């Protein structure tokens, strides 16, 4: 059901990663100031951007769930948050490594982008205890959607508040009106972000099909145990 298109998508992801990584290592110039270390930029920034976009997308899925009352959208929203949280952990770790290398510290507290990203991550980390503290399935799905919408609106607001409160140490790569990056770096960055977005989509799809297969298996087992009841025709992946 959800496995449809998974194979071409996976192949596209692998191919795009091969292209973007070879661009990163063989095409993009070595940055004069930071040297080879700057290559982590092509991993760290796409991870962070894709995870933030994933959070917002999860909020949109949650809106659709509340509007259409279809449990599938709740599963989409759940899986999108799940994969985005994993990407966010990756973004935090790569960001720390980069910060240690270029600023000399693992973590810089007066740096708005880092702090706001951490706050967003902490908020989404509470999604799991929040979701599983609610027993009733439908209510759980509804409340989780409300959480996803609230937190999705919180993401941009949080960046605004934190950015205003602190200095500007973080590289504003694109803020300086087209003057920030040379063309070859921009192309490489674009390729990396596309491959990262493809990876996110593949993982979401993969997780969804795994969850739905799990749910179907459970339903079949239940049907075997009690042969009298008709098997449910609802195919929503289980996220429990």
């Amino acid at each position, binding site marked *: 059901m959800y496995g449809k298109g998974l194979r071409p998508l996976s192949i596209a992801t692998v191919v795009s990663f091969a292209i973007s990584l070879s661009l990163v290592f063989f095409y993009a110039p070595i940055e004069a100031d930071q040297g080879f270390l700057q290559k982590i930029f092509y991993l760290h920034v796409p991870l962070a951007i894709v995870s933030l976009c994933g959070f917002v997308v999860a909020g949109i899925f949650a809106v659709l769930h509340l509007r259409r009352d279809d449990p599938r959208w709740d599963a989409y929203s759940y899986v999108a948050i799940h994969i985005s949280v994993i990407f966010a952990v990756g973004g935090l770790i790569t960001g720390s490594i980069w910060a240690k290398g270029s600023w000399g510290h693992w973590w810089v507290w007066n740096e708005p982008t880092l702090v706001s990203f951490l*706050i967003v991550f902490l908020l989404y980390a*509470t999604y799991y205890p929040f979701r599983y*503290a609610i027993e009733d399935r439908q209510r759980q799905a*509804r409340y989780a959607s409300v959480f996803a919408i609230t937190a999705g*609106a919180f993401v941009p607001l949080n960046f605004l508040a*934190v950015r205003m409160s602190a200095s500007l140490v973080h590289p504003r790569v694109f803020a300086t009106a087209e003057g920030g990056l040379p063309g070859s770096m921009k192309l490489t960055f674009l390729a990396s972000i596309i491959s990262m977005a493809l990876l996110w989509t593949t993982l979401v799809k993969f997780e969804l099909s795994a969850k739905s297969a799990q749910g179907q298996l459970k339903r079949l087992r239940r049907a075997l145990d009690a042969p009298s009841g008709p098997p449910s025709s609802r195919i929503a992946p289980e996220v429990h």
Partner: protein
Amino acid sequence: MTPSRTAFAAILGKDLRAELRTLQSLPAMALFAVTSFVIFRFGLNRTSLSGGLAAGVLWATLLFAAVLGINRLFVAEREEGGFDAIRLAPIDRSVLFTAKVAALIVYLLVLELIAVPIFAVFFLNSARALPPLAMVLVLADIGLAATGTLISSMAVNSRARDLLVPLVLLPLVVPLMIAATAASEPLLLLGGVSYHRFGTWLMVLGLYDLIFALLGYAVFDFLLED
């Protein structure tokens, strides 16, 4: 259909009357705040605070005291069947949200009426910062009440009720606290009241209030379905 204004007044009146008769939340909140100030007084070992430290002590205390009240906001509805009554009543369900936000704002204002003068007596050298600080307090209260009501109404129907409110609410109000402390910090400076970027931070507070009040109003319907 009962007009929303009547329903709003009825629910708000019921909440305030119940609080006045049982005194469940407010005395605990005020006592918590005062005790925290005493702990800060000895923990920091200073006779007076100023600037960022004063703002941090004030807002951390008010936030945690508010969490106590937010935790209990919907307990009566849950235990005495108030949710079912609201569902049955011929009223717009979002009214429950606005009435609860209003009740929480009243609680927070009363809490601050008690706690902020005590804070000033304990830690401040002059009371000149208090009038502009009141503006910050009111704006922060609105945002805190909107997010608090939203989270509280969800947490009360879960297994881990008292755990979820602080867990989910604290990261959610971080921008609000950043704006509130940044707005209060120059007011509490030792050399006298300064209005450095005061208006900007008030606007951030207002934006936060607006977004979360509208959001809560929009999604609250879905939380009451059963």
